[in-house]
């Protein structure tokens, strides 16, 4: 199995972008690209060739689910596992997000020290 290395993180809030970047790059040792919106992700994702995509659910403009749908339309990205990041994690909502094609849902707020392990577990479950 290939190793998880490249992660695309789509998030509109600068604070969270910074802490997630630190959590994934420094703690996890991953290569991370941050996109500030769904539109930016759809534009740049293919060139970055991520192994895994993390999508914030609530964003202005394209939200998480519509970004996922758009990404799935790009053939090179159709199989890349996606996880949603959200502060709403009722089991019914998790089911809903999974039914949209997400592998898993990561609860916000995340612990910067634990995020990488969580992401790695999702990746292992996905592969």
């Amino acid at each position, binding site marked *: *199995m*290939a*190793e998880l290395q490249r992660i695309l993180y789509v998030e509109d*809030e600068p*604070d*969270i972008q*910074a*802490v997630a970047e*630190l959590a994934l*790059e*420094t*703690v*996890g*040792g991953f290569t991370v690209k941050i996109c500030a919106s769904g539109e930016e992700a759809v534009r740049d994702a293919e060139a970055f060739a991520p192994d895994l995509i993390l999508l914030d659910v*609530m964003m202005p403009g394209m939200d998480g689910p519509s970004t996922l749908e758009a990404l799935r339309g790009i053939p090179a990205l159709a199989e890349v596992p996606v996880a949603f*990041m*959200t*502060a*709403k*994690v*009722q*089991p*019914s909502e*998790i089911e809903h997000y999974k039914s949209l094609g997400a592998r898993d849902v990561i*609860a*916000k*707020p*995340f*612990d*910067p*020290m*634990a995020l990488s392990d969580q992401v*790695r*577990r999702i990746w*292992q*479950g996905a592969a």
Partner: protein
Amino acid sequence: MTPTDAEQALTTRLEELRSRYLERLPDEFAELSALQGRLSGQEQDRDVLDELQQRLHKLAGSGGSFGCASLSIAARSLEQRIGAWLEAKELSLDAPTRRSLMDEIEALSRTVPERPERPERPAFRVAPEARTTSDNTLEVWLVEDNAELCRQLQQQLESFNYEVRVFRSIDELKGAMESRQPDLLLVDVMLEQGRENATERLVDCPQVQALDCPLIFLSANDDFPSRVRAVQLGAQGYFLKPLDVPRLVSRISQIFQERHAPAQRVLIVDDDADLAEHMRLVLTAAGMEAWVLDAPREIMETIAAFRPELVLMDLYMPEYAGTDLAGVIRQHEAYTHLPIVYLSAETDIERQIDAMGRGADDFLTKPISDLQLVAAARARVARARQLEERINKDSLTGLLKHASIKEAANREVLRARRIGRPVTLAMLDIDHFKVVNDTYGHAVGDVVISSIATLLRQRLRQSDIIGRYGGGEFVAVLPECEAEHARRVLEDIRRNFASLDFGRKGERFGCTISIGMVCSADYPDQDGPELLVAADEALYKAKRGGRNQVQQGVPAHTREVTD
């Protein structure tokens, strides 16, 4: 393990991000108050509430990542309340409701703690490339007025890379504590030839009350009042003289290691999704890792994947009762010791007793306060860890026993294959250990053994697994570690061990160690036991090559080329 530079840098960076976040919060709170002030009690409040809800949602989703877990919880509860108002067909917020909303929005700023809400130091490690053995020394402060004991302790602690600062009296210590704190404080109970009892002096010393580091007492006599005062002061050890110095050093290194212990893992089984999620948040905020079981049928798969150290189990659930699920867990031999605690609104003592007879360890009655939940979970896991330590660990060194380290080697080789990263196994053996035992006696032999154990713990990463394999033989399992890096670390351990001085009654001698290592990347088809055999062969090669060296195993099919 000592924090590496990379970990330090990470902590600093996190603190920067946190202070930037905190700087922006007052503006955010002001916005929320302003929005709330626009509420009129009419239908047109909808837009305002929409925006309030969105802003609160963001706060709920971010606070905890910046050490403000209570802010997340409070914002989330407000967000949900507003969500419920918005779902109603008609919107009319009366004045008392609006007032209480105002109060709660104002209360948000008071949930922001001065220091990050991370009650215990997080168990973190830095990315593999950045992980190296550390040059950062930990500072141990020693309060001791006996010059000879001082000299002896100082020398021993320094050879284990601790920096020692000596104080002759409590007053000297107090003076120094005003400007900084040690990483560990070691205090003799009887100072000034018995005129000063340190536990008495320290009990009402505000600097010690505020002390944020482990404390150990040394004492010539075993008197009960001093022991109790030591407990009240939060001491983590009480050592009697004559001091067993290697054991003291080993305890000190254990304490430092525990500070970096991995997060406690708790599995929550409750059909009330809101409550389960709330408990998960509370436990996560307290530095634990918590999972909520989604489907009762998947309980064993979830336990196998998450390896919880505690299960919090709702007693009454629609599909399967808590007692049924506990019974299923107990059918699996591997989990007979997993602590299970029932949660229920049940207050009928007889039913509680009946439930406890069926596979569980204790009972928590709902509603349970957040503090109580955290305290109960933390205490249970801590006890379970201690128990496991007793069962699996060698009493002299605190390292894993033969069977446990073999099992760990096996598990890590499987995991390495699964995640596609190499694991390195090393087998270490003290050279001429029998001669040491025969010449100096077993007590001195034990000192040598505890010293190598302490050295291994100190020089290897927190994620590495170390075991005592036999008399003077040890095994180290280094997950996600390539051969080249492992070799550097092991060479470093070998050199350091060779430079240690052992002695008995003025006679000094040195000891060396031979090491055989293998990396799973070189043996793609071999399993744990086979790799251990290969490591043993490499160790044999090191012995034959003249001892005091590291040798790496070479797989059979490439041997002709390299040998």
